[in-house]
């Protein structure tokens, strides 16, 4: 697709959204303190774009995974600060919205290969860990619902496996860090913990190592050469006629032709 076609397509998409928008009910929201009327049902991110803002930063996957669009909001009459990923949360009437695209934070420098699984390694890289006073503001600020403070506690206790489990869903949006009383770099600490867990603590996959060994030893070379030498038609036929594993196959199921196993 050339650039012109691309532009045309995205223009069509915008037009379609506008059409849908004119049919939807408009609700008031406040972006950085200014009032806008936006169609009900849009995400915070879409509504912000609808209001005329253009994202250059603070917008990534639009699928709730990359963590670029961490957002705070409040509703009138409620002292509670609320959080969301702008690409995931639908606008609600009278939301006061401030997106936090980036928050300055200290990330320790380390040579990963030199790190062991001893928790003291993390303590040395992030000594501010021990400034935590258990206020729990981090947990309240997590759009992923992670028990952030519990993970910080687990880290203090040297339980790296627990940290890895608790923070598996972290998108590193940084909202916890922005609220931290002790100025901790929670999400960088968690990333380090998950790296250590993956490389040094989680049990290795023996079967995978065996398989890689077999590949290295050339067990599948002939099979692969055979496929590479086929004409397209022949390859198609082989592919289409391949034996599929039945949906209800048991643990001990094997294909008729076992040369590839």
């Amino acid at each position, binding site marked *: 697709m050339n650039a012109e076609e691309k532009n045309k397509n995205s223009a069509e998409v915008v037009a379609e959204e506008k059409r849908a928008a004119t049919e939807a009910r408009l609700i008031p929201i406040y972006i950085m303190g200014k009032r806008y009327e936006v169609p009900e049902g849009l995400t915070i991110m879409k509504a912000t774009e609808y209001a005329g803002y253009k994202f250059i930063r603070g917008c990534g996957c639009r699928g709730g995974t990359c963590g670029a669009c961490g957002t705070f909001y409040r509703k009138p009459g409620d002292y509670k600060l609320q959080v969301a990923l702008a690409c995931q949360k639908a606008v609600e009437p009278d939301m006061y919205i401030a997106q936090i695209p980036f928050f300055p934070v200290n990330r320790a420098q380390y040579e990963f290969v030199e790190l062991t699984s001893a928790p003291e390694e993390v303590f040395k890289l992030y000594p501010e860990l021990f400034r*935590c006073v*258990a206020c*729990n503001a981090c947990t*309240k600020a997590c759009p992923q619902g992670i028990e952030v403070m*519990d993970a910080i*506690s687990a880290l203090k206790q*040297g*339980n790296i496996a627990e940290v890895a489990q608790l923070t598996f869903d972290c998108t590193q949006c940084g909202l916890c860090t922005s609220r931290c009383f002790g100025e901790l770099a929670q999400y960088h600490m968690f990333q380090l913990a998950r790296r250590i867990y993956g490389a040094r603590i989680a049990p290795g996959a023996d079967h995978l190592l065996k398989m890689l060994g077999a590949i290295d030893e050339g067990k599948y070379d002939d099979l692969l050469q055979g496929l590479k030498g086929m004409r397209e038609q022949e390859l198609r036929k082989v592919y289409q006629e391949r034996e599929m594993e039945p949906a209800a196959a048991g643990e001990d199921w094997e294909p008729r032709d076992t040369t590839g196993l």
Partner: protein
Amino acid sequence: MSLAYYPGCTLKTKAKNLEDPAIGSMEVLGFKLEEIPRWNCCGAVYSLADDDLIHQVAPVRNLIRVKEQGKNELVTLCAFCFNTLKRANLLMKDNAEKRDTLNSFMDEEIDYSGEVKVVHLLEVLRDEIGWETLSRKVKLPLRELKIAPYYGCTLLRPREVAIDSVENPIILHEFLKALGATPVDFPDATRCCGSYQIIGNPSDISEYAWDILSTASSCGAEALVLTCPLCDFNLGQGQKKLMKERSGFKGMPFFYFTQLLALALGLDPEICRFELNYGEPELFLREKSLIP
């Protein structure tokens, strides 16, 4: 019987030799020390500042976890955690204004007003099991051991949290007797080890250690029994320094009370994690024929 138990961060890293033998011993005595879920740091030091409420949040949150479990007693093992948690609990019981502020700040938690009783494991041994019963369960009496009970500060001060007489405590003495050992009385038993003052004045570490260890030694003690990881660290580091700096200073092994308990109850010495101790305890115990 299951007891709600608070370990504390140090017991999970540096002081496994305090925790592991405690859990093993209590099981032999018919009690399961059950870690409270989602515990956090105890606060490390009880804050004395009047307007420093934020430092009470950490200990109180732990007490809330106990209440959530429907339990009314919390067993602690580290003397410092005991002190911080028990004092925070008193604050929640006695100071209505601060209690309300803390409860309203922790709006994600249930309200708390000091319902949980904070105890130290030594109190469980004394009050719920009893020295008589304990001594009957001893399989390997520690007859050859002359040990100075070192209380430090946090089990005894301030008075309102003390587990025993502030001036003349006997709980560790009684404990040692129940295990068959000989407690050696010495005048520095309740003296401060230097605590966190050492951070600001690192050179003081050997001064504190000198006073405590030389007095214990001159009173005839061959080893010291401890309850607190901070005492262990300060005295251990101080002793190392003294052995280098003062010729003729011999030093002595230190034991956590839980290690002696496990040994006397006949548990596998492996559980005591002696490799984490200062002062070659295994050599000493071998000389006394208490471990192979």
